[in-house]
């Protein structure tokens, strides 16, 4: 049980995918200008991550034992087709949710955090339950980072910032400071483990 809790907190805070592994930076800088969309994108990410984790576990257990060199190719193909499939299912079952997610759903395919999730999960030898907890934690971590960033950027829009600093440079510096703050979580588990 402790192990499961550790995996979750570690993926959520200590080794946050965005702020300490630099994964999923494209949406982090690309769609973080509005709080609302950032939050929705985060939710879509959690959703796809959970499904990817399931698929990766199944592939790894039943298929790839016999052909490890196909890992990368099969993962990427599976992720792309899963996202496509999920998109169709959501469209059929819940048009409202589909409209809310919009363009972000297909774009998730090229988000490196998803592929990284599948790769980390296999290289660390997580089982089915551990993998699912890891996926939820990592997805929630991405959402947290996105929402924090979007909030800060909305604030920054209203402040008096030198024109030279506006744009990517400022976003990177904000991200750096956020990442610095998240480093503080590194001490969270040192006493217990």
């Amino acid at each position, binding site marked *: 049980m402790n192990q499961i809790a550790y995996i979750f907190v570690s993926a959520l805070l200590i080794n946050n995918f965005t702020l300490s592994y630099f994964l999923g930076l494209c949406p982090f*800088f690309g769609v973080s200008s509005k709080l609302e969309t950032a939050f929705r994108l985060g939710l879509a990410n959690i959703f796809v991550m959970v499904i990817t984790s399931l698929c990766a576990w199944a592939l790894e257990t039943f298929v790839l034992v016999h052909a490890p*060199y196909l890992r990368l190719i099969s993962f990427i*193909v599976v992720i792309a087709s899963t996202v496509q499939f999920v998109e169709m299912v959501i469209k059929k079952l819940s048009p409202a949710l589909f409209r809310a997610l919009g363009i972000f759903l297909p774009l998730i395919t090229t988000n490196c955090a998803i592929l990284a999730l599948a790769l*980390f999960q296999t290289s660390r030898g997580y089982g089915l339950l551990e993998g699912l907890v890891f996926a939820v934690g990592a997805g929630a971590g991405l959402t947290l980072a996105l929402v924090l960033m979007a909030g800060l950027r909305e604030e920054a829009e209203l402040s008096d910032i030198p024109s030279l600093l506006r744009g990517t440079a400022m*976003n990177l510096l904000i991200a750096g400071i956020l990442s610095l703050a998240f*480093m503080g979580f590194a001490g969270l588990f040192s006493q217990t483990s």
Partner: protein
Amino acid sequence: MATTSKDPAQAYAEFIKGLWKENPVFVQVLGMCPALAVTNTAVNGLAMGSATLFVLAMSSLLISSMRKLIPKAVRISTYIIVIATFVTVVDFTLKAAAPLVHRELGAFISLIVVNCLILGRQEAFASKNSVGLAVMDALGMGGGFAFALVLLGGAREILGKGSLFGFPLFGDSFEPWVVMILPPGGFLMLGLILLIFASVAEGRKKLAERVQEREAAE
């Protein structure tokens, strides 16, 4: 149809633009994940940069030579599979030839697949141009990417460890700025470099305006 470029000047232009004017990291801000994640030392930056360069050049070569055979509807999946194949080649080669480097870079070698720079060049350039031009473009972009990674890694290593390519630069009295080799340092350093680029560009623009004003006055 696989002719190399008739016009060497154009091939040269395609090559040189990726190195500086359209540098993938500093100007287009593409491929950020690997650019920040593995550049805590100059050596890692160089390894990541050359791995990406190889994958980009080989994929461009293959895709531009098959560009008339690939159906439009499945082109993106085709690119991804071609890229994933070359990444697997790099992954296994590095594991055999340089296990230390492979361990340092870890999963980020596999993650070259989702580097948007590579897919972007296939879609924007290799699928529309001749093999020669596509390879020149890939070499330029890959070279520019590698250059940016080495610059970033070097700067972080100098500040964070007081060394460059593993050789100590300063005496014992140097207190390393450890945060620079940790994750926040990546964001901060790239932010600072972009800031320097922006201020240089701003300065040049002002200079050009002043020259114009003076010419108009005369």
